[in-house]
């Protein structure tokens, strides 16, 4: 039978939102998806969800199909920053407004999308770095840092690395002695950390681009007979539940939050955009940072 989806957004007043997600590559991402789905149901918006399985090609295809289905609004989390002009132009020609979430695009023509809702990865890296600078401002000797990068070539990895490096440049004592990709996974984080520990007799700080790699590294540190959080200061990004738990337990020292709960904000924007209201070109998600104490407080209401 005809499941009457799409193409009828205007007829009966309900708004149809086409949303193209990056994939389901991490718990963070799944929480993001869940948030968006729940918020859509709550707001009475009909959601057409598409999973791009981490491929830009797939996202472009999805957007084209959304255009064919004449959805009212298109939102997507770009897999990479560049390369969206052509398809966004098609959306614009079809008079469908576009909202970016989570990651931005570097298009020169800002009229191609209405707004960008999401975190600032560079800022996350910078927050982590600034906290460290603050902590180690009394340090006289060199402080050795190892870094667990995300997937090589991915935007969060690039930006967090950049932000962190900028921040710690303030103190020449802080030195990154090793930096490797742990692919954002626990197994990767653990395996890389094992070798870091063997190659560098003295590691003071670990900066991991996400909680999962940090959690993996924890095991390697324990196995090497060191105490995480004490012998090695651990800083991560994301603040997923397991990470917060580790922070509350004193195994991590600091987390820069990267909130996946964009749903409610996004639905607000969708309605505004649909009604032709003007919206700011850049909306940052409400995010914070956590220290061990803050984590203990926040942990009980942590859902994801």
């Amino acid at each position, binding site marked *: 039978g005809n499941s009457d989806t799409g193409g009828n957004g205007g007829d009966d007043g309900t708004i149809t939102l086409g949303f193209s997600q990056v994939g389901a590559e991490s718990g963070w991402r799944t929480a993001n998806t869940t948030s968006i789905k729940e918020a859509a149901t709550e707001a009475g918006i009909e959601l057409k969800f598409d999973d791009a399985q981490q491929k830009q090609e797939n996202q472009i295809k999805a957007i084209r199909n959304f255009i064919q289905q004449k959805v009212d609004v298109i939102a997507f989390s770009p897999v990479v920053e560049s390369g969206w002009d052509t398809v966004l132009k098609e959306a614009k020609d079809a008079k469908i407004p576009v909202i970016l979430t989570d990651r931005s695009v570097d298009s020169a023509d800002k009229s191609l999308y209405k707004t960008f809702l999401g975190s600032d990865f560079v800022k996350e890296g910078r927050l982590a770095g600034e906290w460290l600078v603050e902590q180690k401002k009394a340090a006289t000797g060199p402080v050795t840092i190892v870094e667990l990068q995300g997937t090589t070539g991915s935007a969060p990895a690039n930006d967090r690395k950049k932000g962190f490096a900028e921040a710690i440049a303030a103190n020449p004592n802080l030195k990154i002695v090793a930096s*490797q990709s742990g692919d954002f996974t626990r197994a990767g984080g653990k395996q890389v950390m094992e070798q870091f520990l063997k190659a560098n007799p003295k590691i003071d700080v670990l900066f991991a681009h996400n909680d999962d790699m940090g959690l993996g590294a924890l095991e390697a540190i324990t196995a090497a007979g060191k105490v995480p959080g004490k012998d090695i200061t651990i800083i991560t990004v994301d603040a997923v539940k397991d990470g917060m738990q580790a922070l509350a337990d004193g195994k991590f020292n600091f987390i820069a939050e990267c909130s996946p709960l964009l749903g409610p904000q996004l639905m607000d924007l969708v309605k505004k955009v649909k009604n032709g209201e003007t919206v700011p070109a850049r909306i940052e998600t409400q995010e914070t940072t956590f220290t061990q104490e803050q984590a203990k407080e926040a942990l009980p209401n942590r859902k*994801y």
Partner: protein
Amino acid sequence: MSNRTAGYRALTTHRLFWPVVVLVGMLAANTVYRPGFLSVQMRDGHLYGSLIDILRLSAPLILVALGMTLVIATGGIDLSVGSLCAISGAIACLHISQQRDQNSLGGVLTALALGLGVALVLGAWNGVLVAVIGIQPIIATLILMVAGRGLAQLITEGQILTINSDPYKAIGVGHLLTLPLAIFLALAAALLVAAVTRRTALGLIIESVGGNARASRLAGIRSARITFLVYVISAACAAVAGFMMTANVSSADGNAAGLWVELDAILAVVIGGTSLAGGRFSLGGTILGALLIQTLTTTVYAMNISPQTSLLFKAVVVIAVCLIQAPGFRARFTRRRAPAAGPTPVTEQPKEQVPA
């Protein structure tokens, strides 16, 4: 000719001589870069060092590659092993996480049985597609490779499932006689597969099916059964590897567990000297191949080769391994003048013509 040179010749012409040379070379390079690389210390009653890490981390790959060897020997290929790792690990972790006492041995054993059971069923599914319906192996197993990832994520609901179970954790990071338990498990699996294939006639029959399927059929071999069997064995190996991977980090990640392990496994098999066209297989070669691949990965981290160039580095090593192994390559350099050795005897690759 003295006995010594004869012995030397026998050694250098041995199938596994060159992979071993590369492996040793890589370890040597690491030692030069960091003299402590080979050192192994005693810590908390077990051995600790990069070599031990290599052994432990290569265990899952060895397991997957063992199953893959048999599949490849029949002329097939199994792309679904990565997904199977994720599924079996996810099921085991899910079951354990639902236990009230995650440390209870009974609960862990049921979890393992469940994970293994589901993997066997999925292996049988692969086997039926290839052996009974006659779908080309690469496509038949691609189906499960794609859908299996989805299944694994369905089981974990897209989250990383963290567990806190010491018996389960032992599979990944436990120790036995000061050495990682994982390596014993891999070794046991290798011995088991070796016994099943070489003590019985299974190995011969697999090689025969892979070498010439038509001739084997006419010799009275039920090749469909054998083909079916190897996919089931491969799935079982992948399941155990999946347990190890998840136990290693005490969590099941439906998306990342065993991602791309099929490529590494195939690479290990091929480095070990088994032809992708099927036929003769070498379990020892496969194990060596897996160790080599893990050493390569560890080397990248240990030498702190930047992530931007690590793939270039891997490419160079892989091609070097192949070249040094290839008789054609060595022949060209040992006796430059002589024309290329003729092709090996006329052997017709039996073709099975099936669409998809």
